[in-house]
């Protein structure tokens, strides 16, 4: 099985001093389901940011989907991003677009036909229990509903790698389980690699998973 994420002695920081992630070494294979936990401020979101190329590593090496992320070319990064499914902690929906338009953003960027876009939007919104809200705007939705739109968007193009930052942070147990089911399915049926940052690993989880944790000092360990 090929490696989707390979980090060796990866060091991440925002300023010159004060490293957020220190010497992280981890290998994530195709089809892995990975949970990342850790205290608030430990650097979970920061680690994900480096995975989608929004933060250049300060040290070590990082390879995502076969691409060396150190000094990656803009065009290569752009191409890589069209194959990722990202869920943000703060959703990052486009407020002036309808729910449907938000969901199909990855398809639209890749130039899929309107027909494919609207079929896929309807299917995904049905999955995240938001049927009928296609033409609403994000600010007309509750926080939890917005979060589910964010998850639907991440799944829209069947990405090879899903990077989800607290995808159930604002959801009750029922809605959370809907999201976990979707991600389990993507992992099992499409062999998608899934990396999920969460502060609470679900009690009931139906597929094998790996678990990394980041401590206060920014060191990354595999728990099990």
């Amino acid at each position, binding site marked *: 099985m090929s490696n989707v994420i390979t980090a060796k002695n990866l060091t991440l920081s925002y300023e010159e001093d004060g490293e957020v992630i220190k010497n992280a070494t981890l290998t994530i294979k195709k089809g892995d389901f990975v949970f990342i936990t850790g205290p608030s401020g430990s650097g979970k979101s920061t680690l994900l940011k480096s995975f989608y190329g929004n933060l250049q590593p300060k040290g070590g090496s990082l390879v995502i989907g076969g691409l060396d992320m150190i000094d990656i070319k803009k065009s290569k990064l752009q191409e890589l991003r069209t194959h990722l499914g990202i869920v943000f902690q703060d959703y990052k*929906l486009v407020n002036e677009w309808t729910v449907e338009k938000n969901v199909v953003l990855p398809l639209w960027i890749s130039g899929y036909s309107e027909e494919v876009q609207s079929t896929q939007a309807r299917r995904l919104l049905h999955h995240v229990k938001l049927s009928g809200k296609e033409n609403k705007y994000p600010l007309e939705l509750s926080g939890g509903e917005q979060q589910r739109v964010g998850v639907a968007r991440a799944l829209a193009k069947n990405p090879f790698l899903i990077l989800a930052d607290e995808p159930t942070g604002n959801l009750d147990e029922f809605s959370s389980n809907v999201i976990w089911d979707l991600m389990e399915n993507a992992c099992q049926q499409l062999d998608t690699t899934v990396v999920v940052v969460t502060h609470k690993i679900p009690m009931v989880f139906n597929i094998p998973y790996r678990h990394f944790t980041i401590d206060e000092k920014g060191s990354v360990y595999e728990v099990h």
Partner: protein
Amino acid sequence: MKFIKRHISLIFPLVAILLGLEFFIVFDRTTDSYEKSLSSNYSIMVVANDEMSIDDFKELDNHILGVKELPKPKALDIIYNTKNKNLDIAIPNFYEIKLDNLLGIKALAKVKDNLLESKSIKRIETFRSTYKSQYELFTFIKFSFGTFIFFMSVIGFFLIVKQMEVWNFMHAQRMKVMEIFGASLFLRSKVLISMAVVDAIISSILTSSMFVSLQNMWISDTQMEILKEHVSDVFLFSDFFILLFASIVVVLIAVFLVVINVKAE
């Protein structure tokens, strides 16, 4: 209503700049013929001992465009033809000189000096006083007009930059999200480009119609002869394309400034 609100803040300064530009074009075009008429009304009278050709004059000064020989005063003819036929009195020749364009006061004095360098030229008459006041008034108007247009354009440009900051704020979120999902620069700025181009087209149409109505309504009633004479010069159809081109260049520069200023967080 929403459409108007969204566009007015860019259209307004754009129209201000385009009005300035079109006024400048029109002013240049109408006063160009005025300048020509001013210089053709103006002539220098030269009294010369010998007969001189146009080339002789042109050799003396290159601003000289044309020369017209004036009929000799009748009295001189009579004297020449009757009493003094055997006396060797040189009867002077009179010439009226036309200049190629409207010259400044100093340049005109230089022409005069150049002409006087010729041995055969005895006297030069100029109509300095009327010419000078007309010319100075004209340059003053031209200068104040240019200054006015310049400041209008500067203010217009600042308003556009201000509006761009608003756009930057309004569109930054969307463009950032699109960038993270791998959208190209063109795709990210497509909305802005189309909005800006629509505004550029609207502004050009507005400005053009202002000038067309100016041409058709105001000028026919005005007392200003110079405008009446050149009423067809006030707006040419090709001006629309000049305005459209200028406004599209301005808005594309503005869009480009917005897009490169949106950085991924």
